[in-house]
C-alpha cells in the first residue's frame, strides 16, 4: 500500500532510514536482541514490557529483564526525571543479563528519547511517538532543537509514528474519554512491536481479556489498540531491519518453565521453606523501595501458612519477627539498606537470645536515602560487619531472579539449624528483574530439620534442656512459650553458657563470644564447596563476584577465549565463606573482583582469606554491561603486571 495514499499513515510515519541500513548487532552473537521501552511513569511501559516478555517466553525465547523506574511515582509528564523504562533481552540462546545496549528503543516522548539515547546501540532502531514531539514536549525534555532535525539521531534507524493519534482512532468507538483512550497506547505500541518481531498478539489478547474481564469497555479498547498497532505494522509496510530472533530455539534443558521475578521467586522460596520445616511463617515488614514487592507477594500466600504483618516501622518489623520466632513461627523481616540499619540492634538481640530469624536486604544505592530505585551491592559491609559488638551472622546472596527461590530456602534452613539470624542479600535489580525458571520439584528438596527440645526430667535444670546444643551446629533447641515444664527467661543480657541465666562473669562472656563465632563458622561445614562457574580450576585470572552481577560476569568470561585460562567464580555464601575458597583463589595468578560498590567483597576476601585482588567498581545505579567487563578482562590479559596486587579501578 502506498503510504501517502493511506490517510492513517502520514509522511512522518514513513520509515526514515539513516546512515545505517541495518541494525548493527553489538552483542556477542546475533541470536539475541535487546529491546527497551521508555515513557512517562504513567505510560504503562512496565506493563508493556512484562507482556512482551510473556509472549516471547511462550515463543520459546530465553530472556532477562530490567525494569528501570524513576523514584517519583508520577513526576510531571514529559520530564526527564519521570522517565520509566523496561529493558528486555531475549534470544534463542541462553540469556543471563538484561543486555548491554538496546537494539530497539520505543520512546513515547522526547524525554524518554533524551534519557535513553545514550544507552542504545549504534544503528539501533528507534520508534518515536511523534505526537509528543511538540514544541512544549521538546521544551520539557530540555531539547532546544528537535532531535529529529539536529542530527543527534543520524546513524540510527528511525521509525516515526503518531502513536497517540492512532490509538485514539482505534479506540474511538468505545466512548472512552480522551485520556482513557490515550492510555491504551502502550498496547497499540506493543502490537506494533509484536509485528516487528514477526509475532502475533494472541497471548497478549488473552491476557487483556482476563485482566479486564470485569470492565468490557476497557478490555475492548485495549484489544482494539493492540490489534490496530499490529495491523499498522503490516499496512504501513515498515521495513526496518531487525536482528531476527528465532522462536523455540533457545536450548533449555527439558522441563516445565515459567517467567519469574526475583521477588516472586523469593516469596515462593520462603513459602517452600515453611512447608519443608512444617512451620508457619510470620513475615513482618515495613514498606520500602525496592523491598516492598516481596511484602506484596507474601501477603497473598496466607493459604501457604504465611502471615504478613505490616509493622509501624522497621524496628517494629524486625522485633515482631523475633517475637514470632520466639513463639514458634519462622520470623522473617525484609527491607533495604536504610531499614536494615534500623533493625541492627534487634538483630543483635536475636543473636544473643539465639532465635532464628531471616533478614532480607534488597540493596539499593546509598548512603542515606540515596538512589531508592537504582541497584547497588553496597550493603555487604553492613551485613557482615555492621553491628555493635562481636555479632556474627551468616550472610548469603542470590545471584539471579530464579536463584532467589533456592536462596530463600537456604536462609531458613541455616537459621533453624543454627538458631541464628541470617542475612539474605538481594538487590533492586533482582527484586524486579525476570527470567525463565525451570520449575523445581518441591518434593525432592530435603526437609528442613527443626531442633526440638527433649523432655525435661523432674528436678533437671531447665537450662540444660534449653541450651542442650547440637555439638556440630551449636544450635540450641527451639523452645517456645506454650511448651510445658520449660518455662525460662531469655533476653539481650549476656547469659550463662550452661544455665542461660544472666551472667556478668568475665570468663563466661569470653566463652559465649567464642561460641557465637564458632556457631557461625560451623555453617561452613554444611555448605557446598565453592564451584567454578565457567573456566578452569586453576588459571591466569579468576573473575570473582557475588549477587546480581552473575549474568554479566558469566557472559563476559564466556566471551574470552579458553586459552586465556580465565574463570568465573560466583559466591553465594559470603559469611562464612566456603572452606575451599581460599585454596581455589590461590590457584589463579590474579583475581578480578567486579562489584557494584567500592570494593566490599575485595575487603572481605582480603580480611578472611588474605588474598589480594584487583578491584573493578561501578556505582552508577545500573548493572554491569558485558562489554565493559570484557574490556576490563582483556586489558588485564594484555598488560601483565609486575605486581599482583593492584588497587582501585573504577568503571
Amino acid at each position, binding site marked *: 500500500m502506498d503510504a501517502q495514499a493511506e490517510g492513517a499513515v502520514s509522511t512522518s510515519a514513513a520509515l526514515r532510514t539513516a546512515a545505517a541500513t541495518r541494525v548493527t548487532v553489538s552483542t556477542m552473537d546475533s541470536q539475541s536482541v535487546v529491546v527497551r521501552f521508555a515513557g512517562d511513569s504513567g505510560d504503562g511501559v512496565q506493563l508493556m514490557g512484562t507482556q512482551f516478555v510473556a509472549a516471547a517466553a511462550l515463543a*520459546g525465547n530465553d530472556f532477562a529483564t530490567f525494569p528501570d523506574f524513576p523514584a517519583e511515582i508520577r513526576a510531571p509528564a514529559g520530564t526527564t526525571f519521570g522517565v520509566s523504562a523496561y529493558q528486555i533481552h531475549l534470544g534463542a540462546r541462553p540469556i543471563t543479563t538484561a543486555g548491554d545496549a538496546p537494539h530497539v528503543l520505543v520512546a513515547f516522548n522526547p524525554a524518554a528519547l533524551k534519557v535513553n539515547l545514550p544507552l542504545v546501540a549504534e544503528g539501533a532502531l528507534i520508534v518515536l511517538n511523534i505526537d509528543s514531539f511538540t514544541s512544549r514536549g521538546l521544551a520539557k525534555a530540555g531539547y532546544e532543537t528537535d532531535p529529529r532535525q539536529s542530527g543527534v539521531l543520524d546513524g540510527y534507524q528511525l521509525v516515526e509514528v503518531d502513536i497517540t493519534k492512532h490509538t485514539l482512532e482505534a479506540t474511538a468507538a468505545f466512548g472512552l474519554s480522551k485520556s482513557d483512550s490515550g492510555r491504551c497506547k502502550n498496547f497499540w505500541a506493543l502490537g506494533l512491536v509484536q509485528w516487528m518481531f514477526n509475532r502475533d498478539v494472541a497471548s497478549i489478547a488473552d491476557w487483556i481479556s482476563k485482566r479486564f474481564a470485569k470492565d468490557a469497555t476497557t478490555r475492548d479498547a485495549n484489544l482494539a489498540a493492540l490489534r490496530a498497532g499490529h495491523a499498522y505494522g503490516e499496512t504501513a509496510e515498515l521495513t526496518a531491519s531487525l536482528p531476527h530472533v528465532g522462536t523455540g530455539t533457545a536450548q533449555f534443558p527439558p522441563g516445565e518453565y*515459567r*517467567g519469574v521475578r526475583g521477588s516472586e521467586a523469593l516469596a515462593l522460596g520462603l513459602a517452600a521453606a515453611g512447608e519443608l520445616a512444617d512451620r508457619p511463617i510470620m513475615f513482618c515488614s515495613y514498606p520500602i523501595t525496592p523491598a516492598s514487592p516481596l511484602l506484596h507477594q507474601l501477603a497473598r500466600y496466607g493459604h501457604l501458612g504465611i502471615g504478613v504483618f505490616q509493622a509501624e516501622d522497621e524496628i517494629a518489623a524486625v*522485633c515482631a519477627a*523475633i517475637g514470632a*520466632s*520466639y*513463639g514458634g513461627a519462622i520470623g522473617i523481616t525484609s527491607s533495604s539498606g536504610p531499614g536494615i540499619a534500623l533493625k541492627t540492634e534487634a538483630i543483635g538481640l536475636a543473636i544473643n537470645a539465639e532465635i532464628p530469624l531471616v533478614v532480607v536486604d534488597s540493596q539499593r544505592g546509598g548512603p542515606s536515602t540515596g538512589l531508592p530505585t537504582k541497584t547497588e551491592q553496597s550493603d555487604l559491609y553492613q551485613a557482615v560487619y555492621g553491628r555493635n559488638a562481636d555479632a556474627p551472622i551468616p550472610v548469603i546472596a542470590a545471584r539471579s531472579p530464579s536463584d532467589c527461590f533456592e536462596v530463600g530456602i537456604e536462609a531458613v534452613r541455616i537459621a533453624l539449624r543454627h538458631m541464628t539470624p541470617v542475612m539474605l542479600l538481594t538487590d533492586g535489580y533482582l527484586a524486579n528483574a525476570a527470567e525463565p525458571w525451570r520449575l523445581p520439584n518441591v518434593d525432592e528438596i530435603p526437609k528442613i530439620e527443626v531442633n526440638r527440645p527433649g523432655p525435661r526430667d523432674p528436678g533437671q535444670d531447665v537450662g540444660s534442656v534449653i541450651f542442650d546444643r547440637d555439638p556440630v551446629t551449636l544450635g540450641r533447641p527451639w523452645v517456645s512459650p506454650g511448651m510445658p515444664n520449660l518455662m525460662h527467661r531469655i*533476653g539481650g543480657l549476656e547469659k550463662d553458657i550452661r544455665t542461660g541465666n*544472666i551472667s556478668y562473669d568475665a570468663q563466661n562472656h569470653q566463652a559465649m563470644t567464642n561460641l557465637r563465632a564458632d556457631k557461625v563458622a560451623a555453617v561452613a561445614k554444611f555448605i557446598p564447596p565453592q564451584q567454578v562457574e565457567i573456566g578452569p580450576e586453576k588459571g591466569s585470572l579468576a573473575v570473582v563476584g557475588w549477587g546480581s552481577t552473575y549474568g554479566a560476569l558469566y557472559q563476559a568470561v564466556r566471551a574470552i577465549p579458553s586459552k586465556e585460562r580465565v574463570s568465573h567464580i560466583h559466591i553465594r555464601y559470603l559469611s562464612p565463606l566456603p572452606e575451599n575458597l581460599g585454596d581455589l583463589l590461590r590457584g589463579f595468578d590474579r583475581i578480578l573482583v567486579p562489584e557494584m560498590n567500592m570494593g566490599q567483597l575485595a575487603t572481605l576476601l582480603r580480611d578472611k582469606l588474605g588474598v589480594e585482588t584487583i578491584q573493578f567498581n561501578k556505582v552508577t545505579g545500573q548493572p554491569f554491561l558485558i562489554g565493559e567487563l570484557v574490556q576490563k578482562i582483556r586489558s588485564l590479559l594484555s598488560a601483565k603486571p609486575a605486581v599482583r596486587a593492584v588497587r582501585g579501578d573504577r568503571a
Partner: protein
Amino acid sequence: MSAQLQAKDFASSQEVRWCPGCGDYAVLKSMTRALADVGAVPEKTVFVSGIGCAARFPYYVETYGFHTIHGRAPAVATGLKLANPELDVWVVTGDGDGLSIGGNHLMHALRRNVGLKILLFNNEVYGLTKGQYSPTSRLGTRTPSSPQGSFDTPISPCGFALGAGAKFIARAIDIDKTGLGGVFEAAHGYDGAAFVEIFQNCIVYNDGVYNSFTDRDKAADAQIHVRHGQPLVFGENGSKGLAFDMKSMSLKIVDAKAQASEVLVHDETNRMLAQLLVAMTPPEFPIALGVVLRQPGTSFEKAYYANQPTQLKRTGKVADVLRQTSIWRVPAQ
C-alpha cells in the same frame, strides 16, 4: 490439671535485684498473687519487657519471659501474640521505655488493640541510667541531666493511651495490693490491649514523687477508686462526689450528700468521662484509680486471623502455586 497454683508458685528462683524499698517489689508480689487468683497457666503465660528497672520483671516470674531491647517490647509481643494467640502476654515497660524511646510501638499496639496486658511502671524518672528526667517528669525536675530543672512538658500516660485509641485503661498505686490486684485481674480478662499505669515510687532517684496522693493521711481526699455503675465519690465516708460542670465542660467536686443528684455514676464505656477522669491531678482533684475505661472491641489477633481465608492454615502447596501462571514445556530432545 494439677492443683490450684499459689502465688509462691509464680515466683522464680532468681534473686530479685531491685533496690531495697523499690515499689517494684510490691508490684511483683501483687502480680504473682493475681496470676494465682486468675488461674494462669505458667507455660502459657509470657512476660515481655524492654529496658529499664521494671524490665527486670520477667526474670522474677516463673513463666516464660523475654527481656528484649529498649522500647521494643510491644513490637516483640505483637509478633509473639500473632504467632500464638493462645498465650497470655504481659508487657512490662516504664515511662522512659514506653513513652520515650518506645512511644511509637506503644501507640500502635494500643490503636491496633493487640491482646497484650501492658503495664507501664511510671516513676517519672530514669532509674537504671541513674536518675535523668523522663518524659513524665514534672516541670522543674532537677536531675543530673537537668540541673536547672526540666523545662519540657511531661506527657500523661493515660492521656496518651486514650489518644492512641486504647479501649482498656486502668491505674493503680504500687503498694495498693487491692487496687493493683483488681486491675491486674481486669486486664487479664480483657480481650484486647489493656493499658495499666502503675504509680511506682523510685526510692533512690525520685522518692516521694506521689506522696501528695499516696500518703495515708491524704489518700481519702486525694484518691478516687472508680467502679463501673457506682457513684464517683471519695473522701472520708464518701463525702465528696464528682459532677459535670456544664458551663466549663469539666469536672467539679460537689457534696456527695447535699448534691447527690449531681454526682456522676462511673460508666467505664464512656471515653469522654475517661478523658476527664485521667486528667484530674491533685491537689485540686483526686487521682482516679481503678478501671477507668473498658470498651468492648475486637482484638487485633482475632481480626488478623479472621481476615485470612484459611486463618493462616497451610492448605495450599507451593508446588501448585508456582504453576499458577503461564507455563511452557520444553520437551526432551
